[in-house]
């Protein structure tokens, strides 16, 4: 049956091509995600970080961390509204992007700003709520990044989804950290906070609708959608 064999071969080829494209799209997204870091690095070496370079580094890395976190949380509502279910494939990667920038943010503070003065860092985290909440948010992102692998998804099973809902408290802490980090109430941090609230609100609305329709709870459908594990 040469026709069937040919069809199977064609299907195989198709899958292979699609897989390659998918991999390329992830690489492209990483390239896009890390562009601000690359630009900043170039700025650093060409003296374009302004009068107080360490402050600029801290501000920029913090901004890109919260931006990635916002994109991560926007995936699900956007998917529901637009029906673009393929979006979910990039959610985990965006979350990792947030972790990368949050780590750079903390790293700049600890290594460059404080010059690794550990007692100063510990004092900050323990005694200053503004610092405590920022550090707590980073710890949450760390836990989520570590458990973001396929292996951990399998190992944790249903608990994985529960654990990764910690991204919501993290978003709350990050918003507060950003608003509080300013000397007066500033528009930008409030816009981010409002956006997080909106995204969270959208999820609540979706959940209520689902319940009204008697549909399954989101957690019951398994852990991460299969499409994301691909």
């Amino acid at each position: 049956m040469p026709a069937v064999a040919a069809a199977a071969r064609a299907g195989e080829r198709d899958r292979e091509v699609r897989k390659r494209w998918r991999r390329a799209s992830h690489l492209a997204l990483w390239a896009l995600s890390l562009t601000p870091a690359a630009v900043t690095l170039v700025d650093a070496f060409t003296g374009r970080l302004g009068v107080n370079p360490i402050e600029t580094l801290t501000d920029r890395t913090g901004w890109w961390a919260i931006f990635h976190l916002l994109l991560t949380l926007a995936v699900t509502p956007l998917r529901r509204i637009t029906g673009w279910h393929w979006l979910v494939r990039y959610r985990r990667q965006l979350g990792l992007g947030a972790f990368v920038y949050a780590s750079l943010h903390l790293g700049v503070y600890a290594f460059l700003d404080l010059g690794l003065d550990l007692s100063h860092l510990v004092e900050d985290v323990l005694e200053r709520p503004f610092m405590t909440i920022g550090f707590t948010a980073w710890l949450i992102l760390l836990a989520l990044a570590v458990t973001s692998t396929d292996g951990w998804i399998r190992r944790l099973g249903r608990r994985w989804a529960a654990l990764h809902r910690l991204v919501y408290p993290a978003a709350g802490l990050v918003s507060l950290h950003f608003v509080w980090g300013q000397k007066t109430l500033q528009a930008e941090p409030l816009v981010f906070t409002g956006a997080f609230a909106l995204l969270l609100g959208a999820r609540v609305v979706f959940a209520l609708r689902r319940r009204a329709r008697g549909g399954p709870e989101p957690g019951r459908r398994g852990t991460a959608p299969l499409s994301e594990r691909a």
Partner: protein
Amino acid sequence: MPSILNRLLKVPEDEVTPEELYLSRRTFMRAAASLVVGTAAAAALGQGAGAADDELRGLGDTDERWTDYEAITTYNNFYEFGYDKSDPSRLSGDFVTDPWSVTVGGLVENPGTYSLEEIVSQFEIERRVYRLRCVEAWSMVIPWNGFMLRDLIELLVPKPEARYVRFEAVFRPEQMPGQRRELLPFPYVEGLRMDEAMNPLTFMATGIYDKPLKNANGAPIRLVVPWKYGFKSIKSIVKIDFVAEQPRNTWNVVAPHEYGFYANVNPNVDHPRWSQRTERRIGEFRRRETLMFNGYGELVAHMYEGMDLVRNF
């Protein structure tokens, strides 16, 4: 003296006799001196201006490296123009500083509105190289040009009941974008206790690096109080009032648990959100230790003897 005074004070010769002035000035000096616990400042006050001022030239000068002019003029907190530190230099182009006048009022013998030229022409402009420590934990070394506030105060002759000096900055929303956005409750207000105002370190600046003040730095005339956090050094002053009650300064109104009236540089009293133990000198990589009273303790610590500086932060 009378002719200089009259020129400054814009009053006809026959309305003010030198004797009266002299007496009221003496009264004020005694009052001021009694407020000052210490020695150096009190002695200087007792001698009056003139000879003593010569000895005070360059008082408190640091021989540390001056911060780059570019940094001093482009990295500023001046909310009248905007929130970002680059806003004052970028957005102050419309700000008009000529003509300029300062209105003096309150508990003072010589109230009135004086043009900047009238004020400045009374004094020999000198240079003071001071450290500036911002409450945000960065610092600079700035060569200011100007004159001692105490010399101006002596000409204005506060009444004995005057215990504080209240300063007000300019309010011109049409020229100041940050005021249009109402970033703070404007006009910006600051204040000093009379002995702080009379301290020979307290300076009225009209220039930096031997050039007239840039708009971003508080042109055309601003206060410089080097042992206090930068926000005490109010910019673009249009009003000076002598008052009996402690004025509410703007940052204290906005965030009373974060910013006090005294705002003395103090490595042992932290800001709620960050430590004040160290600071970054602009242009340097490593942080340095912050000094008590920004390193001017010898000249100012006596004013706060017996005061709880944790409560009066």
